[in-house]
């Protein structure tokens, strides 16, 4: 399972790649964060296996000055067995099974060329199933595995929901910090690429969404493979209200117009909160009712517009159709 990292995670990882023993206090000072925030993020990165902190040996420093990449062709029926036997040899640093002309590619280090020759003749040649090998002597290494920096594009999606993200949301405006903290506890943040569907019309509705970044079009099937845009929602606006209204079935398809990050709130948890806290209940349900009412008003204007042959002025919100990826055939 992929665990997205944000820009702060990426910077913490970069500092630790330079010095794996750097104290949290130092990292916090370098990034302008609280020590607790760094500790919490590091705990998450370590526990979910995103990073491991380990000791890297420099082979040259301990007398292993010869490095080789050895490519091996094997009987495919013995592929795993051969790979495991090679991996167990002390000279071998890494073993990978690969596609292409060579079935196994390994990295190994030796004190000198003579040791490399002995390794090939005495150890590799004796492994049953190996057909052929090719050895490349490494002359100079410019970048090591430990030098790999996490690409920036992998780090743009935020992963933690801050209270201010919810405070500005139309659905939750007016709630206290404690109430927001309760909602944050059950909510999750997800990023979708342009064109991705968040939910599809007629699916069961279990979550309500708030747009954090990006824009989402709400589409309705109009038959013959066509869809009509019923509206679009942007930053801080909510959608997916059928998750709070019986029969809990989506009446629209939500499709991202651009790369979009949403905060998803499971409505089972939200309902529990509503039944325990009247202010939250009224605030949320009033907003949901208001959103549906506003959609009804738009739909009625649109209906009148069509019935009167365009005589009635249509509110600008309905007229505005944001471009969708070419994959979508959109009509209105």
């Amino acid at each position, binding site marked *: 399972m992929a665990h997205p990292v944000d820009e702060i995670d990426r910077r913490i990882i970069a500092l630790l790649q330079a010095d794996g023993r750097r104290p949290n206090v130092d990292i916090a000072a370098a990034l302008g964060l609280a020590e607790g925030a760094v500790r919490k993020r590091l705990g998450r990165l370590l526990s979910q296996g995103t990073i491991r902190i380990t000791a890297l040996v420099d082979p040259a420093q301990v007398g292993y000055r010869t490095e080789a990449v050895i490519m091996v062709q094997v009987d495919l029926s013995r592929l795993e067995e051969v790979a495991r036997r090679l991996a167990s040899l002390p000279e071998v640093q890494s073993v990978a099974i690969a596609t292409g002309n060579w079935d196994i590619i390994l990295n190994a280090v030796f004190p000198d060329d003579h040791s490399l020759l002995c390794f090939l003749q005495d150890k590799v040649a004796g492994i049953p199933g190996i057909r052929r090998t090719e050895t490349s002597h490494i002359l100079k290494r410019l970048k090591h595995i430990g030098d790999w920096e996490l690409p920036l594009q992998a780090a743009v999606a935020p992963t933690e929901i801050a209270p201010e993200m919810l405070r500005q949301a139309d659905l939750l405006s007016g709630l206290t910090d404690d109430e927001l903290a309760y909602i944050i506890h059950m909510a999750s943040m997800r990023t979708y690429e342009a064109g991705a569907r968040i939910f599809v019309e007629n699916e069961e509705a279990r979550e309500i969404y708030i747009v954090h970044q990006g824009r989402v079009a709400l589409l*309705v099937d109009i038959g013959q493979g066509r869809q009509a845009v019923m509206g679009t929602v942007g930053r801080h606006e909510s959608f997916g209200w059928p998750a709070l209204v019986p029969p809990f079935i989506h009446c629209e398809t939500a499709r991202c117009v651009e790369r979009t990050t949403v905060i998803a709130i499971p409505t089972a948890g939200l309902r529990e909160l509503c039944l*325990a806290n009247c202010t939250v209940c009224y605030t949320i*349900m009033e907003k949901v009712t208001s959103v549906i009412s506003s959609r009804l008003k738009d739909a009625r204007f649109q209906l009148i517009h069509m019935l009167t042959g365009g005589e009635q002025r249509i509110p600008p919100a309905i007229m505005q159709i944001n471009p969708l990826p070419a994959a979508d055939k959109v009509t209105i």
Partner: protein
Amino acid sequence: MVSLDLLRQASLFEGLSDDQLAHIAKVAREETFEPGTFVFKENEEAKDLYVVLEGRVAILIDIGGGRQTMVDTVARGETFGWSAMVPPHILTASAKAVERTRVLSIAGKELHNFCLEDCRMCYVIMENLAKTISIRLKDTRLQLISLLHG
């Protein structure tokens, strides 16, 4: 004060206990409208929420030039005038009695106060209201789709 039996006819109050209905009964009142008379007009302040007990009400929207178009009709047991519960509490349509119509009217402000005292009542009423509006939305969209296929 109206009887609980009248309140039980309203889909808006479906799921409420007798105790909860008794609270609403104290602030609800019955009104009768003759055919052709307006219950309320578009753009007025929305104060009351209505439930049809008998008869039928047309929901009309101004289309300019002093003309109106009917977008819906409301029959027995159904709710209208929900702008009283939805900000900015301004009526988005007019309601006109099609025939002699008896309605229950409930002050939105009173209902709001009940909602802040009883979370379950709040949830049930608001969920029923959202359901009512969403059914109207679905119907309107179906009409739109059938026109698009024209």
